[in-house]
């Protein structure tokens, strides 16, 4: 061994080594160029590559809260009784029509026929019963179990008809059944959906190179209008700069939630790309621990609302993209009421309210910030604005897991910034055990009335009252609706501009010059 090593070094003269190094480098370069030219020419018009910042942990939307799961499988792989359309409305899906009893307690769904799961098993009412019963079972791991708790029983009438009986009226039940968490799965494949999802949708799961991409292919046996694309690839690019490079280089055709807003103007100026600024269901708020001193005093909470300049936050944290909100409600929703005028930016009034509450000399508090850039950037700006009225908010950066245990589960926080991305989620303010520590019988009454109402006009009135209630109570400081910043190839059509539910619905996507 010793001799061999010595021999080797004696033979390898310095000049020889240089030559070897040069040969290696040259070889790599030519190999790269040759294969590069070969692959650059291939751009099949019936496939698409979608960029996403976060990779889904698994692909079972009924057993996880990660938005990335729905962003891959919603409407593409899995389908529910109903679904959400691009404008946020509830559309028929596997249930083609339904009858609702006069008291709003019994829903009879008429199902599509001739539907098969991707593994070939026929779909029927029994699968609906299985899926809903599984989601509401005691050992259910469904992240949105509250959607299913009002269900009293699910009965199969015949293979194409299913009857769902509720224990109390839920005005929004059809919307609830359109969530990704309520998709219909099959008994024989449900256990493996996390790694091998079997749905009824227009795309089938094909391949997953973890950490890099997921491939879907067109389902040739789809029961409805078949997808126009033969193949879709979701590519995971976490770093904003890398996302920019990937779109610019043409590695991805679309980045529907583009993470680098500072570079959008570059894409807007380039005719190869289209920049689409839309809305999401993400109410970004500075949450206040209503149960903790001094924030149990409504004057202090109102003072915080007056102290914050939303426009400055949007400009500084989101490069100007984002709509200010005055309550916990999406401006894209038909029931939206503009309450941004309730607490205009008024530092003098904030100071007066703080003085009246006994904090004329200022107060010290903490502001816990989770990792997303909207939270970290907004936090810096807001801390500065609060300082101007005498509130010294010490910033504490936390990881998501830590945020979930400290802030969300143990409610150990004063202030925090987070975006609530679930659609139509104002109901969380009626939950006693929620991390805001907000307890209002008046608000709960409104929500109870809302649940018992299916009449559209009456629902809108109640939703408006609910928005006003929490704005008046200054439960949280309502900042802005998270924008949906999309960049895609100008020849690509059919992607959603807005995001009424977290999804990348590819069923209507196609290429056209």
């Amino acid at each position: 061994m010793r001799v061999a090593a010595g021999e080797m070094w004696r033979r390898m003269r310095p000049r020889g080594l240089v030559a070897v190094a040069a040969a290696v480098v040259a070889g790599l370069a030519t190999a790269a160029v040759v294969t590069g030219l070969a692959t650059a020419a291939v751009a099949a018009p019936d496939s698409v590559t979608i960029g996403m910042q976060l990779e889904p942990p698994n692909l079972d939307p009924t057993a996880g809260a990660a938005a990335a799961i729905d962003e891959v499988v919603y409407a593409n792989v899995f389908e529910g009784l109903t679904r959400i359309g691009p404008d946020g409305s509830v559309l028929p899906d596997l249930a083609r029509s339904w009858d609702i009893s006069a008291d709003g307690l019994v829903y009879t769904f008429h199902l599509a026929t001739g539907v098969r799961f991707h593994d070939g098993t026929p779909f029927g009412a029994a699968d609906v019963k299985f899926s809903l019963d599984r989601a509401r079972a005691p050992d259910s791991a469904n992240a949105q179990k509250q959607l299913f708790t009002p269900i009293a029983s699910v009965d199969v009438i015949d293979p194409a008809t299913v009857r769902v009986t509720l224990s109390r009226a839920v005005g929004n039940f059809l919307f609830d059944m359109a969530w990704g968490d309520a998709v219909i799965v099959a008994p024989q494949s449900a256990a493996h959906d996390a790694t091998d999802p079997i749905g009824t949708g227009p795309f089938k799961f094909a391949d997953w190179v973890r950490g890099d991409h997921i491939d879907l292919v067109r389902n040739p046996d789809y029961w409805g209008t078949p997808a126009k694309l033969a193949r879709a690839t979701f590519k995971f690019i976490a770093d904003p700069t890398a996302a920019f490079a990937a779109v610019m280089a043409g590695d991805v055709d679309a980045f529907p939630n583009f993470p680098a807003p500072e570079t959008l103007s570059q894409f807007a100026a380039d005719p190869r790309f289209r920049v689409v600024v839309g809305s999401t269901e993400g109410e970004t708020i500075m949450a206040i621990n209503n149960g903790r001193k001094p924030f149990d005093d409504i004057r202090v909470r109102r003072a915080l609302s007056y102290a914050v300049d939303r426009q400055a936050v949007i400009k500084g944290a989101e490069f100007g993209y984002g709509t200010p909100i005055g309550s916990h409600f999406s401006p894209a929703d038909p029931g939206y009421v503009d309450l941004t005028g309730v607490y205009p930016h008024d530092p003098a009034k904030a100071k007066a309210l703080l003085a009246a509450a006994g904090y004329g000399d200022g107060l010290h508090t903490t502001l816990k910030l989770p990792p997303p850039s909207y939270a970290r950037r907004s936090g810096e700006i807001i801390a500065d604005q609060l300082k101007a009225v005498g509130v010294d908010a010490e910033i504490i950066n936390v990881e998501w897991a830590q945020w979930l245990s400290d802030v969300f589960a143990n409610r150990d926080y004063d202030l925090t910034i987070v975006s609530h991305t679930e659609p139509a989620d104002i109901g969380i303010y009626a939950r006693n055990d929620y991390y805001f520590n907000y307890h209002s019988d008046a608000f709960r009454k409104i929500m109870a009335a809302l649940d018992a109402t299916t009449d559209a006009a009456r629902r809108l009135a109640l939703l408006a009252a609910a928005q006003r209630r929490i704005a008046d109570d200054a439960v949280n400081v309502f900042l802005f609706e998270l924008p949906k910043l999309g960049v895609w190839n100008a020849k690509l059509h059919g992607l959603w501009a807005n995001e009424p539910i977290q999804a990348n619905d590819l069923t209507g996507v196609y290429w056209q010059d």
Partner: protein
Amino acid sequence: MWLFAARRFVSLLATLVAASVVIFLVMEVLPGDPAAYMLGLNAAPDTLAALRHQLGLDQPLLVRYFAWVAGFFTGDLGISYTYRVPVAQLVAARLWVSLPLALMALALAIAIGLPAGIVAAARRNRASDIAVMGLTQFGIAVPNFWFAMLLVLAFAIGLHWFSAGGFPGWHAGFLVALKALVLPAIALALPQASILARLMRAALVETLGEDFMRTARAKGLSAGQAVRRHAVRNALVPVLTVIGLQFSFLLAGAIIIENVFFLPGLGRLIFQAITQRDLIVVKSVVLLLVAAVIIVTFAVDLASAAVDPRLRRRVR
């Protein structure tokens, strides 16, 4: 030699056992509940309890430790909490990216760094020495993520020779996969090559002044022969140690480069697993990396002992 190797091997095993205990305990005290992370903002308490039970998080500490260690011998490292696939499969897939990338980068670094260092030492204070030293200074000073971005800008966005990143997988074809690793390997190799060149030069310059070099010349060897037969071999011991360290670093420490090129490597796997509290993945990958470092160090010790017999005697 054999006694030396056996001793080193025993200390290798002891280090591994100690590391496994420390890693396991650190993961236990880390705040944050994987089940809470997976279920998000609307999770009900009984749902959390159900998921914790499913994941086996409600079992006693000792049971979980021994189950984990036993897993290393059977190859069953458990199921990832978030991905829901076997950890061994997950790690193996990432190794197929990280290992070739590390080897490519190291090969490049050695192929460029060592000859450059030898040339610089042999022509000390002449133009080629100054040029090599200037370039290596640049190579060390430039942050490699920035250099990586320049590479992307030039070769992906500008010339379209390469894709901006990503890894198609080896099943997409050997050349296609290899091509995806070229830019990252160059970005990783630049600082390492610079370090090796400077180290090689310094070590060689030192040995050139040793008495035995004069003796070698005195017994009739030419300057070049003396350098090749005696100086390079003596200077190689510190260089080998550093190459060992560099390999361990490249295997796990490429995370920044992996991010720039969005490569599914080990570095990103561990980063992602930590933020998602996928602790079963974290502890297995960390232990594997510790094992890799210890084994590489072991190999370097043996190689150094082979190159320089004095090292063996000293230990005995």
